[in-house]
C-alpha cells in the first residue's frame, strides 16, 4: 500500500512538474492551441494594450499575429515622445512564476510580471513600471502619446471610410 502511494506521489509530482514548465508560442495559431497555458488577457485577444499615466505616460502593446509577435511602446519624458516597435520570435508564459517573457529577435529577453491576468483590469509590471489594461488608463496614455489609437477603432474607421485593408 505504502509503495503504491509512493509511486502515485512520484508520478503526480512528475506530472505537476511537466505542467509547470514554461510554454512558448511563435504565432497566433500556436497561441490558440496552447491558450490555456497563457494569461487570460491573451486567451481572449491576440492583441493586448497596457497603459500607465502616472508622471510619465506609457502605452504598450503586444500583438500575436499569424506569423509574428509585435511589441510596441511609446513613452513621453519631458517634451520627448520616444516610440519603439520590435519583433519577438517567441512569447512564453510560466504559470508558476507568472512571468510573460518575450524573446526579441535582437536576442534581448523582456519579462513582464503578470500581477492580474483578468482582462478588464489586467496588470503587468515591466522594469518597475506597473501597466494596466484598464481601457480608461490605456486610452488616456494613448491620447497623450498619439499614434496609439485602438486598433479596433481604427478598423471601424477604415471600414467607414472604405479604407479597410
Amino acid at each position, binding site marked *: 500500500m505504502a509503495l503504491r502511494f509512493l509511486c502515485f506521489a512520484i508520478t503526480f509530482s512528475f506530472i505537476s512538474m511537466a505542467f509547470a514548465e514554461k510554454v512558448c508560442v511563435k504565432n497566433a495559431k500556436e497561441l490558440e492551441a496552447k491558450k490555456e497555458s497563457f494569461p487570460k488577457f491573451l486567451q481572449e485577444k491576440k492583441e493586448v494594450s497596457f497603459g500607465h499615466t502616472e508622471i510619465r505616460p506609457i502605452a504598450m502593446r503586444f500583438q500575436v499575429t499569424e506569423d*509574428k509577435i509585435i511589441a510596441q511602446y511609446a*513613452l513621453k519624458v519631458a*517634451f520627448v*515622445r520616444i*516610440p*519603439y516597435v520590435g*519583433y519577438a520570435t517567441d512569447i512564453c508564459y510560466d504559470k508558476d512564476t507568472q512571468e510573460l517573457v518575450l524573446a526579441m529577435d535582437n536576442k534581448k529577453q523582456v519579462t513582464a510580471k503578470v500581477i492580474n491576468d483578468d482582462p478588464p483590469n489586467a496588470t503587468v509590471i515591466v*522594469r518597475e513600471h506597473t501597466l494596466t489594461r484598464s481601457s480608461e488608463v490605456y486610452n488616456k496614455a494613448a491620447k497623450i502619446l498619439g499614434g496609439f489609437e485602438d486598433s479596433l477603432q481604427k478598423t471601424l474607421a477604415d471600414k467607414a471610410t472604405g479604407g479597410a485593408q
Partner: protein
Amino acid sequence: MIQALTSILLSLTFAGTAPIQSKEEIKFISKNEETILGAFKTDPYIGTIGRIDEKREDLTAVDLYAFKDTKKLTMDKGLCKDLLKQIYGPLDKITLKVKTVSIFTSPTGKTCEAQIDDPVKNSQIPERRTIVGFIKAKPYAIEFNLAKKSDADTIENTRKFWNSLR
C-alpha cells in the same frame, strides 16, 4: 500650474549627462534613469537624445548607442554591419530589413549611414535611419525612428544632427 511644475522638474530630472555633446540644444535621457527604455533594446543602447529645437516630432528623439572600442578606427561597410548587428541582432534573421549601407564623409571622418526598413504593413516606424561613426575616436551610432519613409530633407536633417555632435 502643477503640470507645468511637474514638467519642469522632469526636464531637470532627466537632463542626464550625455557622453557626447551637440551644437544643438539637447537633453539626454539615460536608460539608467528611465529603465523601460533599455528593456527591449540591445546592450550598446545607452539612452535617447531629445532635440529641443526640432519641429518634426519623429526627428526629436534620437537613440544613442555606444560600442566597445573597435580594432579599426576608420569606418567601412564591414565594420558598420558588425556594429549594426550589435544594435539589431543577426541582420539576416530579424524582421527588419537593412536596405542600404553607405559610407559618407562627415566632420568626424568616414561615417556609415544605413536605412533599415520595417516590412510589416502599417508599422508605426516604417523606417529607421542609423548613422554609425567615430566621435572622439569612440564608436557611436544614432538612430532615428521615422514615422514615414525618408526623403531628401529627412536625410539632410539626420546628417546635420550627426555633424553637430562632438
